[in-house]
């Protein structure tokens, strides 16, 4: 009973992710850089390699590490399998981050796409959480201490911090309970949630009639097959080949088996959280862990719900002026962040200078102001000098946040050595 309509069900289902015809503008590579598609592809690769890894991996303190060694040494292509999972996991973090930046600067998050921005942020969080829970599983020194540091960061959240950290770990230290818990999050709940959210995400893209295009330019519809499909296949193949080549050449790191008595020097969080760790070296944890992330999240969520007068959906940086301003803002934010890092590292000792002031004020609020005041002055400057519109200001704020995080990540992961000293 294989009537024409029912044959090749899987191919057809996949094709139905796309409409029959697409706007010619929307399939130019520079419109999306294929980032969303690559992220989806990486997720599928992670899913497949992850399911295979589950057959080799034993989630217990006694056997986790040895099962990874066994996988690497005695299973045919075992090391390659692990490398593929590891590097696509890292790739997914990077690609998702770039994807967020792409949709933001191409003004693709407003009006009917608001909801998808929220779902996107949620997925970004899930991707980070997935990677982080996976990071613990090999149970080596790197994994154990990164998770110890990260979960202890949680405990600085006022009032609920300790309870929250204990809940994540299942106790006050990273133990087998933590390992098991992370394993189930990593290989059960999180992938399930991701599949669910991805479906909504794709559906909402189609509901908004595809990715954004510039309405001012001429628009022409072309058949999806082959115009878009071939491009997608080429990009997918390139990603897959690159991933395999990379995984054949570079092994996923594995240090000694976890030892709760000896912390490596320095102990670092996973690279995508190094910006956080860097922030924490300077500012009071109440701010670093709680106030700042809360404000940033609120800001990100709120962006598409503000009222703008001069919004050009689908136009990169909204206008040529916006593009120029973004570039200047980027340079400004790099400099400001570096200056504040160096100042706070070598010249500031707020706690000792004002011992009678609570540390929450001296190393918290004051340090935040040290960054915010110049930033605000800068925003005021571009507003009066360049006659920047509200959307330009919001873009500049976004640029400052992203740039600051990138700079802190680079300083934290590359420039800090023993004892977390700069240039050690």
């Amino acid at each position, binding site marked *: 009973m294989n009537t024409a309509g029912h044959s090749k069900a899987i191919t057809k289902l996949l094709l139905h992710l796309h409409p029959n015809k697409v706007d010619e503008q929307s399939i130019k590579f520079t419109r999306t850089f294929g980032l969303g598609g690559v992220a989806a592809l990486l997720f599928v690769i992670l899913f497949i390699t992850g399911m295979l890894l589950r057959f080799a991996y034993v989630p217990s303190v006694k056997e986790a590490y040895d099962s990874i060694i066994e996988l690497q040494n005695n299973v045919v292509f075992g090391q390659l399998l692990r490398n593929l999972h590891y590097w696509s996991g890292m790739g997914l973090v990077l690609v998702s981050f770039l994807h967020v930046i792409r949709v933001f600067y191409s003004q693709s998050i407003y009006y009917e796409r608001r909801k998808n921005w929220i779902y996107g942020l949620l997925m970004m969080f899930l991707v980070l959480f997935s990677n982080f829970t996976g990071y613990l599983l090999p149970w080596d020194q790197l994994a154990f201490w990164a998770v110890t*540091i990260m979960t202890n960061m949680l405990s600085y959240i006022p009032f609920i911090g300790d309870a929250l950290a204990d809940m994540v770990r299942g*106790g006050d230290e990273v133990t087998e309970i933590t390992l098991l818990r992370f394993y189930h999050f990593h290989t059960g709940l999180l992938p399930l949630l991701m599949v669910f959210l991805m479906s909504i995400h794709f559906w909402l893209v189609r509901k908004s009639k595809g990715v954004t295009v510039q309405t001012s330019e001429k628009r022409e519809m072309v058949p999806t097959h082959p115009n878009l499909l071939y491009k997608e296949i080429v990009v997918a193949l390139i990603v897959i080949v690159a991933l395999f080549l990379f995984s054949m050449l570079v092994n996923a790191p594995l240090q000694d088996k976890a030892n709760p008595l000896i912390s490596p020097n320095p102990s670092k969080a996973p690279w995508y959280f190094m910006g956080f760790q860097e922030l*924490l070296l300077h500012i009071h944890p109440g701010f670093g862990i709680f106030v700042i992330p809360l404000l940033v999240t609120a800001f990100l969520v709120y962006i598409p719900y503000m009222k703008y007068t001069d919004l050009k959906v689908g136009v990169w940086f909204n206008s040529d002026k916006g593009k120029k301003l973004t570039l200047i803002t980027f340079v400004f934010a790099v400099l400001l962040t570096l200056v504040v890092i160096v100042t706070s590292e070598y010249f500031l000792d707020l706690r000792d200078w004002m011992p009678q002031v609570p*540390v929450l004020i001296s190393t918290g609020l004051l340090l935040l102001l040290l960054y915010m005041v110049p930033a605000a002055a800068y925003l005021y400057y571009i507003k009066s000098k360049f006659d920047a519109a509200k959307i330009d200001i919001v873009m500049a704020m976004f640029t400052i946040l992203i740039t600051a995080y990138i700079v802190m990540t680079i300083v934290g992961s590359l420039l800090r050595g023993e004892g977390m000293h700069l240039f050690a």
Partner: protein
Amino acid sequence: MKLKFTRRTFIKRAIYALLSLEVVYIFYSLLGKKKDGDVVDGWFDAGNINFFENNKVYPFGSAHFYLSRLEDGGMLAISIHCTHLGCAVQFNQNKDRFVCPCHASAFNKHGEVLSPPATRALDIFPISIRDNKVLVNINNPIRRDKYEASQLTYV
């Protein structure tokens, strides 16, 4: 967005709220702490009191504490977990202090902060002396902001 509140939406939202609460509750109790506070009272036997000389620090790695005996014979069982982000501190004999390898916090033999980023003194464990044996209650770390003489245990 205007808030519309009819009977129907009210009932719907009430049901959603109840369901979410239930889910949160189940999740919370599943993930909630396994071992409750003081239930397990594990006293670790650190050895005979006469073994510990004054003004010396003895590591008990497997039990996650250092036994610090001060000049006057008072004792502290100091946790190895740095109060900054939980790395394991090491006792540095030459510098006579605990140092943390992760972000370079340092603590003196009382566990007090000598250099940041840590802000709080190292946790301690209760000590009890029975039949000349030093017993340390390793399941009940005590948080403290700073060192006080009352924390010492004497023979």
